[in-house]
């Protein structure tokens, strides 16, 4: 017994109310719920309403609203979405931390032994301009994602990271502020330099997440006449 369009719309509205609007996850849960409801109606003789209620109870926990410190406590959403995003981020963060640590140790030791103020001044400008370029890309990608008009788990993840870290490129920009003042010979510390490098090494995350969002879209747009 296949569900009618109106019945699928009921499931879709339920998922929307639960905050599961990201197409990659929503289509999966909707299909799973629809399959399960169809089976209940066939084998147990349940009405759609009864089968839908039972199925809703099963999914209640996975769709409950949670937040996660890895993503940022400002953001909440269905458990299924938040946990998926947190898992993705953990991998990216590990690579970021390793890359930044290695760079800081190697390049930092060279810098520490350098007494040239010109080198520090050059680096201050380099980091400053690079941070501005990264910020420009973050904003550009944000609008590019908006233009796709489709929400995916990756567009959600992008939003959390862009809001969370976007302002770092301004606040810690050595051309605009002097918070860490690492680019002065006498002020150089590994910890401050590491913070700059963490911010720098974080930047590929934005591009990777954007690419993942486009990958999801490509798979879906490959289907003709799809309503999103």
């Amino acid at each position, binding site marked *: 017994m296949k569900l009618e369009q109106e019945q699928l719309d009921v499931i879709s509205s339920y998922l929307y109310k639960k905050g599961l609007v990201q197409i990659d996850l929503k289509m999966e849960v909707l299909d*799973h719920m629809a399959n399960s409801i169809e089976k209940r109606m066939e084998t147990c003789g349940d009405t759609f309403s009864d089968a839908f209620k039972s199925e809703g109870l099963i999914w209640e926990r996975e769709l409950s609203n949670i937040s996660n410190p890895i993503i940022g406590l400002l953001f909440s959403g269905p458990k299924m979405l938040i946990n998926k995003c947190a898992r993705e981020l953990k991998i990216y963060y590990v690579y970021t931390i390793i890359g930044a640590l290695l760079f800081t140790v190697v390049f930092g030791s060279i810098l520490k032994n350098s007494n040239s103020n010109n080198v520090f001044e050059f680096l201050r400008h380099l980091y400053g301009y690079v941070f501005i370029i990264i910020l420009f890309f973050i904003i550009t990608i944000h609008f590019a994602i908006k233009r796709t008009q489709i929400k995916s788990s990756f567009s959600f993840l992008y939003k959390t990271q862009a809001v969370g870290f976007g302002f770092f490129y301004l606040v810690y920009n050595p051309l605009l502020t002097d918070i860490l003042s690492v680019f002065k010979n006498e002020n150089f510390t590994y910890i401050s330099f590491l913070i700059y490098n963490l911010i720098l090494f974080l930047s590929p995350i934005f591009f990777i997440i954007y690419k993942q969002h486009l990958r999801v879209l490509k*798979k879906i747009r490959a289907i003709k006449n799809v309503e999103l």
Partner: protein
Amino acid sequence: MAKSKLYKGSLNTIILKLLDEGEKMYGYEITQKVKEITKGELKITEGALYPALHKLEAEGLLDVEVARVDNRLRKYYKLTEQGVREKINRLAELEDFIRNMEQLVNPKWSIN
């Protein structure tokens, strides 16, 4: 997984094995297949299945294909080449584990 926490560590391997046999499968189909093979003894919950599928996809072991079926979108999973290789390794690991557990639970004593 409703039946036992003991199965939890093997879920990814179970998924890889099923996908190797079934070429491409969707989430609900996997739960039903496991239920059918184990005659209802093992039930994979939604809360365990989808995080496992997403993790395997993120690791590059699974690829995704989307199709329109019965007026809705369906997400099919299939093994990537890396997934096929990993399945062999993980199955060998699981078989070793089962063998070791069997020896621990039912030790065969012998006089050498």
